[in-house]
């Protein structure tokens, strides 16, 4: 082939989307695949602080001791097997409970004549919007026993009953509070699956003489079963990577799961072991997603073959209607207003454990740094505390930057995937941008830590910068945005761009004059989810923050460690307000429906 022909071919094939997809693939490879490789290497290397634990080695030497220690050593039980078992129990129980609640609620809203459907749907999403460990803090506020920090919770204050440890801390509250956080996920996915069941399928069964319960059991349930199982698996994998809740509720009774074990080992200068744990978590996450696609892939499809959803098929609750409605409302209030109220009240108590009205104070909000009153913490109230204000500022910056990066990348990925559909590039890009989804948050955080802890070639060490946090959050939330981007691009036929090509418009002009204006509304509504997720993120960033880049979420850890719950709770109240306010505003202004994004 002569050079002229070769360059001609290159010029023809080097379309903007080809170049773009190559760039995006390179970036994602570096941020998703390379960290994994680095992390694998780290598990075979002696780290500076470990050379005393592994005699006769120098930092950087090759070693198998981390793996040996994890799987065979005397410490294997406490380092690996127990946390692993706890993780499995926690994730399994939590996801099943969450699906039961979410599924029941979905069925009530979609398939019965329960009143106030819209109100129920709106309220049911709130626990998911709040930071995942809000519930656990509320639980501690309510059911704390004197085991930690000496003070008691509201329940004991009011009744005088000292609750046993197993109720105040440990597995039971972890499962319950996490299920309360994740049930909206199941609610949304199962609602949409139920809505997609063609009512004609039910009607034809009824015409053949089947009773309602029989139709439910033999037609509806089998049809939504794949969606239910898939939701269980996805919730399960979310549970794997969660850090906050097991840390707050498991810590006091020394209950460790893999995520807290990973954190403890990294903080305790045992990175080798920590990365082994992280790899295991990623492996489990991958396994779960593999199961999801292989076991359910074939069956999933028939839920999507949907017809019109039938209004005719509503089940009448009859006399049970009011009791059921009241029960649902009470439950929803218990998982939304009450936890929020508890945190708010606790942030006002001057002396922990004393909830009498006369001791209510705004000291922890606006008080001066004074070591003579309340907790004697010597910290200023959160609204005048420079450290906390800086953390809040960081959180806001992180949220905005992450949303913008995700929004732009999501749109570009959507554009390239749709334009290059059917080619290998599109497939790889689609898969790569989805990969962070299967990585448990804290494990992905540790992978990025391994990659960016030291400078590599032209890329400096990013540890301690906000950039690192933005990178972590952007890549982690990319699956939402790229999904949204792809489906938004699908709405626009290629002709609209081709018409501009015919008119002689350059690629930049086509993007700025045609594609971007057409994507504007979906772009802006796509910013919401990454913003909220970044504002309330803890598991992903807990390993990546440094004193200078503390976030509103991570700064609470310090207070919680010291037992200074009023500070923690005050910050949490601020975060929850910020997140709910953003959601509400964007719904009013842009008509954003958060439920659609989270479903991905």
């Amino acid at each position, binding site marked *: 082939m002569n050079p*002229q*022909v*070769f*360059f*001609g*071919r290159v*010029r*023809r094939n080097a379309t903007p989307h080809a170049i773009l997809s190559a760039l995006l693939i390179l970036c994602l490879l570096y941020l998703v695949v390379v960290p994994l490789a680095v992390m694998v290497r780290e598990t075979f290397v002696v780290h500076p602080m470990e050379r005393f634990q592994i005699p006769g080695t120098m930092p950087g030497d090759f070693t198998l001791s981390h793996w040996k220690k994890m799987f065979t050593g005397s410490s294997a039980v406490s380092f690996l097997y127990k946390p692993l078992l706890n993780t499995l129990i926690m994730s399994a129980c939590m996801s099943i409970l969450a699906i039961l609640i979410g599924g029941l609620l979905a069925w009530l809203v979609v398939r019965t004549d329960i009143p106030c459907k819209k109100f129920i749907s709106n309220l049911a999403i709130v626990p998911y919007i709040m930071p995942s460990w809000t519930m656990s803090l509320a639980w501690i506020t309510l059911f704390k026993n004197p085991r930690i920090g000496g003070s008691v919770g509201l329940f004991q204050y009011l009744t005088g009953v000292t609750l046993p440890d197993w109720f105040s801390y440990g597995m039971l509250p972890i499962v319950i509070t996490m299920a309360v956080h994740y049930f909206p996920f199941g609610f949304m996915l199962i609602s949409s699956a139920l809505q997609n069941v063609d009512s004609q399928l039910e009607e034809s069964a009824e015409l053949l003489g089947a009773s309602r319960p029989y139709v439910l059991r033999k037609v509806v349930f089998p049809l939504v079963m794949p969606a239910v199982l898939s939701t269980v698996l996805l919730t399960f994998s979310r549970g794997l990577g969660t850090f906050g809740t097991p840390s707050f509720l498991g810590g006091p009774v020394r209950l460790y799961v893999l995520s807290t074990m990973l954190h403890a080992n990294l903080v305790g200068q045992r990175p080798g072991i920590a990365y082994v744990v992280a790899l295991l978590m990623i492996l489990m996450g991958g396994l779960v997603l593999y199961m999801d696609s292989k076991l359910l892939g074939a069956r999933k499809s028939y839920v999507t073959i949907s017809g019109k959803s039938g209004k005719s098929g509503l089940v009448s609750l009859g006399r049970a209607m009011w009791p059921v409605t009241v029960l649902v409302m009470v439950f929803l209030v218990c998982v939304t207003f009450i936890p929020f109220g508890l945190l708010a009240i606790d942030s006002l108590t001057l002396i922990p454990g004393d909830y009498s009205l006369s001791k209510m104070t705004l000291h922890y909000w606006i008080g001066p740094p004074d070591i003579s009153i309340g907790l004697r913490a010597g910290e200023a109230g959160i609204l005048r505390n420079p450290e906390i204000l800086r953390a809040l500022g960081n959180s806001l910056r992180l949220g905005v930057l992450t949303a913008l990066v995700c929004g732009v990348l999501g749109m570009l990925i959507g554009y390239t995937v749709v334009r290059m559909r059917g080619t290998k590039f599109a497939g790889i890009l689609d898969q790569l941008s989805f990969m962070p989804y299967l990585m448990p948050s804290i494990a992905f955080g540790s992978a990025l830590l391994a990659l960016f802890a030291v400078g590599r070639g032209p890329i400096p060490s990013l540890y301690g910068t906000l950039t690192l946090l933005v990178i972590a959050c952007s890549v982690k939330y990319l699956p939402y945005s790229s999904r949204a981007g792809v489906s938004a691009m699908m709405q626009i*036929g290629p*002709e*609209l761009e*081709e*018409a*501009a*090509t*015919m*008119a*002689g*418009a350059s690629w930049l*002009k086509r993007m700025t*004059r*045609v594609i971007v*204006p*057409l994507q504007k509304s979906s772009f802006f509504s796509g910013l919401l989810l990454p913003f909220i997720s970044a504002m309330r993120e803890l598991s992903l960033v807990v390993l990546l923050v440094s004193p200078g880049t503390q976030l509103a979420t991570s700064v609470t850890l310090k207070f919680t460690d010291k037992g200074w719950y009023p500070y923690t709770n005050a910050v949490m109240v601020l975060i929850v307000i910020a997140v709910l306010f953003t959601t509400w505003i964007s719904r009013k202004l842009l008509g954003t429906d958060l439920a659609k994004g989270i479903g991905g």
Partner: protein
Amino acid sequence: MAEIVLRNVTKKFGSVNAVDNLSLSIKEGSFTTLLGPSGCGKTTTLRMIAGLEHPTSGEIWIGDTCVFSAEKGHYLPPGKRNLGLVFQSYALWPHMTVFENIAFGLRVQKRDAGEIQKTTSDVARTLRIDDLLDRYPSELSGGQQQRVAIARVLVMKPQVMLLDEPLSNLDAKLRMDMRSELKRLHSETGSTIVYVTHDQLEALTMSTDVAVLHRGVLQQLAPPMDLYHRPTNVFIADFVGNPRINLVKGCLEKDEDHLAIRAGALRVSLPLATNLTLAGQEATLGIRPEDITLSTTPTSEGFSGTVYSVLPAGSEWYVRVMVGNDLLTVTEYEDMGLVNDQAIWLNIQPNRAKCFDNNGDLMG
């Protein structure tokens, strides 16, 4: 205004040849239609001329410019080929007004505002959409959107206009109106038009030349009437014409110094086919429905049959007649008062009958 020449153009999608070694010359100033069933490669051909698809091999010339050559590595991007494309879906930008849609190309070329204003309104007036300039595409009817799409192309004064099934989204009545408008537009602007359609009637009524494609291969390039009366093969004969041509499989035989074809109960003499060595080979007889006349009384040359069903169509009657084991269609222009199962005699005009050899190619 320029001639378009395709030389040995092949386009592969994976292992499928969408267009197979196509050589085609589209005359300057002609209205050439690419006709064929869906999947025949006609739209791919159009998009290759436009520059939106790249041939796997071959060359494309527009006028004196080689716009694409796989061998020499030439490639001229679509915007520089000075041609306009009207899409099947119109592809009007929904976020721009009619004016902005039409003016887009001029603005890309950074013409001055006054000129843009003037040129755009001139074209809008020609297409009678000058009162719609401030509207958005969603506020227009299908026919109006069509005009905007054409105006957007015309405003650039392209040397070639490409139209990709532009009428298929319109209802039947509007389609008829737009056909005559497009034909008038062609004669007024004098530009070369390449038109893609699967509707053979559209091709016949509008074009100066029709190129029939089948499975990526050019079957015939001819003026519409030639195509209709002298289709070079069985595929074209069958594809062009409504109601469809009657095709009866049969066998060639000797008839004094020329050949004849015996097909079912029919036998037609072929005075022009004199290659007697072909006698005994299989062949197909093709007769257009209007080339058969019916009579209710026996005729000397007629073949006897029975009426199978009668389909009145306003100005004409389609009569389905059973002859031997074959069902033929006959067009009659007056009501003969026929009833089902009635005995009938068919008279075939021998000089209108077509005979295709065992490869499907026209004989004689």
